[in-house]
């Protein structure tokens, strides 16, 4: 039995090795063939093609904030171009750029502009990008509707109330000295202060810091972050509930979400040019100071060779900017900004 068994094992080993060799050889061939197959019809670069007869696939990844817009555009687009296979994913802006710069994603959704490190990454891989601004997301600063003592805050107040130096400040008035030191003359009410906001994992948290707190924190040599002792919540509903249940509450969430909520008062914000109410118009025009732009980044070379990407972005530039953005709760660009975005796309402006 024994020698027979070991002989069998040897034979088995040889067979396995042979199969592995053949498989790897085939694999190599496959790889070559497939990459040729997946090359979209590079010859058809005429811009006259209509959406209906375009085929191919578009891979989109990136910000989960922008994801709903790209998904809705994909849904609408699939009705006019059933032959195009659009896949949308939302792992986050940073992850999206990583895939985009590696050439794995054709389009990157981003809730901020591309960073220098990401640019280098893209350049190293020979990826040329077209930056297209598609929507604006405002951040609303809000308090309980019963809190009538205050209507408008400026960045100094917000830094004094929420910034890193406000730890354990538990009334609005207690933040006044620091706010005054920073040049604010808002009279903060002598009411209890409870802060509700999104947690660190949230894009809204990052944006709030970047737009409101970062500059002051840098000037004062502090870390650009919030105070650690606030009610952080991943679910915006719970943030709103906190605001609704608490007279002295202060918090921030995405504008679209706060705009429809009851018992919540949106505070006007003074970014240096006077108190500005948060509404769709002031956010679109950029008057309201706490807002950020949302972008898509298109791989220029892939767009040039893949008609499906061109058709999808073309569609994005019309239906996307005009209807999809507001239907998923963001603020549409002004006509002027839309024209500029379309211009960047039509001219294939790199960078």
């Amino acid at each position: 039995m024994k020698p027979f068994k070991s002989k069998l094992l040897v034979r088995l080993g040889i067979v396995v090795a042979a199969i592995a060799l053949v498989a790897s050889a085939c694999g190599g061939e496959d790889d070559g063939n497939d990459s040729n197959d997946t090359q979209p019809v590079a010859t058809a670069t005429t811009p006259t093609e209509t959406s209906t007869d375009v085929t191919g696939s578009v891979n989109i990844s990136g910000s989960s904030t922008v994801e709903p817009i790209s998904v809705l555009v994909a849904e609408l687009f699939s009705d006019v171009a059933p032959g195009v296979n659009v896949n949308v994913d939302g792992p986050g802006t940073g992850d999206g750029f990583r895939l985009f710069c590696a050439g794995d994603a054709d389009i990157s959704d981003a809730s901020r502009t591309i960073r220098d490190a990401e640019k280098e990454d893209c350049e190293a891989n020979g990826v040329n990008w077209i930056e297209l601004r598609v929507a604006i997301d405002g951040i609303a600063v809000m308090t309980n509707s019963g809190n009538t003592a205050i209507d408008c805050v400026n960045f100094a107040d917000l830094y004094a109330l929420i910034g890193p130096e406000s730890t354990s400040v538990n009334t609005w008035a207690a933040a006044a000295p620091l706010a005054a030191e920073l040049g604010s003359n808002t009279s903060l009410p002598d009411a209890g202060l409870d802060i509700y906001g999104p947690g660190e994992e949230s894009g809204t948290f990052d944006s709030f810091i970047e737009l409101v707190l970062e500059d002051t924190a840098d000037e004062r040599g502090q870390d650009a972050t919030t105070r650690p002792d606030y009610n952080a919540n991943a679910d915006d509903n719970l943030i709103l509930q906190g605001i609704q249940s608490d007279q002295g509450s202060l918090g921030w969430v995405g504008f679209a979400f706060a705009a429809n909520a009851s018992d919540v008062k949106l505070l006007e914000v003074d970014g240096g040019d006077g108190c500005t109410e948060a509404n769709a118009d002031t956010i679109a025009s950029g008057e309201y100071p706490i807002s950020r732009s949302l972008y898509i980044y298109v791989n220029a070379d892939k767009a040039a060779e893949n008609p499906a990407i061109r058709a999808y972005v073309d569609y994005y530039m019309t239906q996307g900017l005009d209807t999809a953005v507001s239907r998923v709760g963001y603020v549409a660009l002004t006509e002027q900004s839309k024209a500029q975005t379309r211009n960047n796309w039509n001219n294939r402006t790199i960078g």
Partner: protein
Amino acid sequence: MAFGKVLDDKTSARIQRTVASSISRKGVDKKGTAFQMVLLTTLFITMLILVVLIFDVVQGGWEVLTTRLWGFMRGEIGSGTFPERLGVQQGLYGSFWIAVFVAVFAFPIGIGSAIYLEEYSRKNKFSRFIELNIRNLAGVPSIVYGLLGLFLFVEGIPFLTGPNSNGRSATSAGLTLAVLVLPIVIITAQEALRAVPSGLKEGSYGVGATRWETIRYQSLPYAAPGILTGTLLSMSRAIGEAAPLILVGATTGFLGSNPNILDVGSVRERFTAMPIVITEWTQKTNTVNEDVFIPSAAAAIVVLLVFVLLLNIVAIYLRHYFEKKRES
């Protein structure tokens, strides 16, 4: 009369009671009764949790399930702007093919390894070391298997797992989850083989059967119901996993294709799966289409529960079949 003098009335009554209750066995086994009550309570708590959970999801998804069940089964993941288009077909497709991959890869390899370890391998330090490692592997967090899958199947062999999807396909997901449940399959199959009475095997050898004949005609048929139960439980585990799928690239937003569930052609394309669909939809709490996503998520949970239940029914049926075969 003599007794009456030795014992007072109180004592004799107590003795009488004790004897009576001892005969009727009432009130003697107090600890036993208490233990039984504790066990009953634990069972009740378990059932209560299950009932509350099922009630909650069925209630949440009731409207979707009753008004547009067919559309929901055929629909696709999306932005929620068109509630009538939202559905789970793509998720079911992914989960179904993951189950197929687990059955095709994990079951034969796992059961084969178990048979070798139980019936052939010598019990020495080396085989004990291997068994220890298999047990450890069964306890490794699933996200680690996700990383392994990303490295091996997505980045390692994309030309096999998904030439058009950079390897981010149902194939990669299925292979990853097959690897994930492999240790569980091996362990449960081993336990089932170990439960085969040694008399059965010895009897078989005694009448001159070879090792192969003993395993083929005695051990395996006897162990088959146990092996089946274990493997199908591991299948349910694979279908419920979400974390590793995120790493191998399950799509969360929108999928261009919506293949029929039996369409093999799309197993190398981008994919999603039921647990991903559910996590994604439950996370849409702060979007404008929250009212569409939350009931849909509940309905998707019900669909997944039914899917797993169907699998378990098949398992129970097969188990009965093998048990009957064993008895005859």
